[in-house]
Structure formats: structure tokens, C-alpha cells
């Protein structure tokens, strides 16, 4: 198994349950996962709907971010999925799963991978609020 077990930028639903199977290995004792789910509010405003837009390079960038992480941490495997298109409240936009022999490596790699994705992946988020206004997040 390659240490980068799964990377996808997809319009399909994603979940920890699904990705965790990608990183399962008898050699690992520690599994850490992150799910970033779409919230029903942002800065105190009620969100009616939202949509992510992905640049065509997003898949390749995500692969690079993963490849870099596995060189810096003693992990068995990482798996990442970022969803785009419309996403319902409560569904996952980003899922990261990491397996490692020891928990410290698993936590560090998972946390840094989430940070790396947020910083580097060319994906945008458009929110429509219940009052009818809308915004592109981070683009004030």
C-alpha cells in the first residue's frame, strides 16, 4: 500500500467511514480522523445553502500536500477527500484519515494535513444566508 492511500476531489458524498477503510492496516495501532462538516451558521448568521467550487488543479495540489505530509511524519497511511458542488448542511466537505503505529504521529499528521489542505487547495466556498444575502468566504 502506498502511504498516500486515497486522494479525491469529488462531487460525491464523503465520510470517515468510507475513508477509514483506505488507511486500515494491521501494522497501525492509532487511527485519527477529521471531518469538516457544513454548518448551519457562520459568524452568527443562518446559512440556507452552500456550494464549493474547485479549480481543475485541486486534485493534483491535494496529492502534493499528501505526498509532503507522509515524508515528514511516521505514518502508515493517509487518505483525503474534498467534496465540491452543492453540499447539504451537516454533510462533510473535507475528510482526512491517518493511520500510524503511534498516536502522536497520527494526530500531528492529521492536523497538519487539514491545515495544509485549507491553505493550499484551490477551492472556494459560496454561502447563501437565510436572509437572502450571499458571500464568497474569505473574499470580503
Amino acid at each position, binding site marked *: 500500500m502506498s502511504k498516500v492511500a486515497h486522494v479525491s476531489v469529488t462531487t460525491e458524498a464523503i465520510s470517515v467511514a468510507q475513508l477509514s477503510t483506505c488507511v486500515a492496516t494491521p501494522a497501525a495501532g492509532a487511527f485519527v480522523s477529521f471531518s469538516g462538516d457544513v454548518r448551519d451558521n457562520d459568524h452568527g448568521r443562518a446559512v440556507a445553502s452552500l456550494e464549493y467550487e474547485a479549480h481543475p488543479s*485541486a486534485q493534483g495540489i491535494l496529492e502534493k500536500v499528501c505526498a509532503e505530509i507522509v515524508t515528514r511524519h511516521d505514518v502508515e497511511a493517509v487518505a483525503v477527500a474534498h467534496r465540491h458542488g452543492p453540499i447539504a448542511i451537516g454533510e462533510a466537505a473535507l475528510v482526512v484519515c491517518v493511520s500510524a503505529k503511534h498516536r502522536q504521529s497520527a494526530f500531528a499528521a492529521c492536523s497538519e494535513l487539514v491545515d495544509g489542505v*485549507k491553505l493550499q487547495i484551490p*477551492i*472556494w*466556498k459560496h454561502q447563501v444566508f437565510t436572509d437572502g444575502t450571499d458571500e*464568497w468566504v*474569505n*473574499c470580503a
Partner: protein
Amino acid sequence: MAVTVRLFAAARSAAGTSQVQCSTGTLREILQELTDSFPAISQVLPQCSFLVNEVSCKDLDAVLLDESMLDVLPPFAGG
């Protein structure tokens, strides 16, 4: 003699279109042409990063030749 400009997310919303043709020239000149065509995009451009033929370009004086592709990327908000 044209550059294909692809506009994403907030930049596309401001322009009302996802792709336009601009004249060849420096990146600075092309961004000025975009602003002239779509005044609302002037709010977004200062926050954007740029790809020229899929490679990051931070030099406003870089010259884009015929058939180049310029991608206008507003601040990312993945995750």
C-alpha cells in the same frame, strides 16, 4: 493575438462570466482590461493570485503571449 482568461468563484460572480478573451500584454495590462470591462471585479482582483499557463505568476510585469491562459484565483476557502 489573445489571452484566454478564466475567472473563478468571486471573480466569476463579479464579471458575470467564467471566461473572456483579453489582448496580449503584461499581467498588469490584462488586469486593467478586465477592470475596464467589469468594474465590479476591481473589488476582487487585489485579493487574487494568478496562474499563467497553470504556473503561479506574481510578477505584474510578466508578458503574456498569444494563446496564453490566465487563471484568476480569489482567496481559497477549502475545508
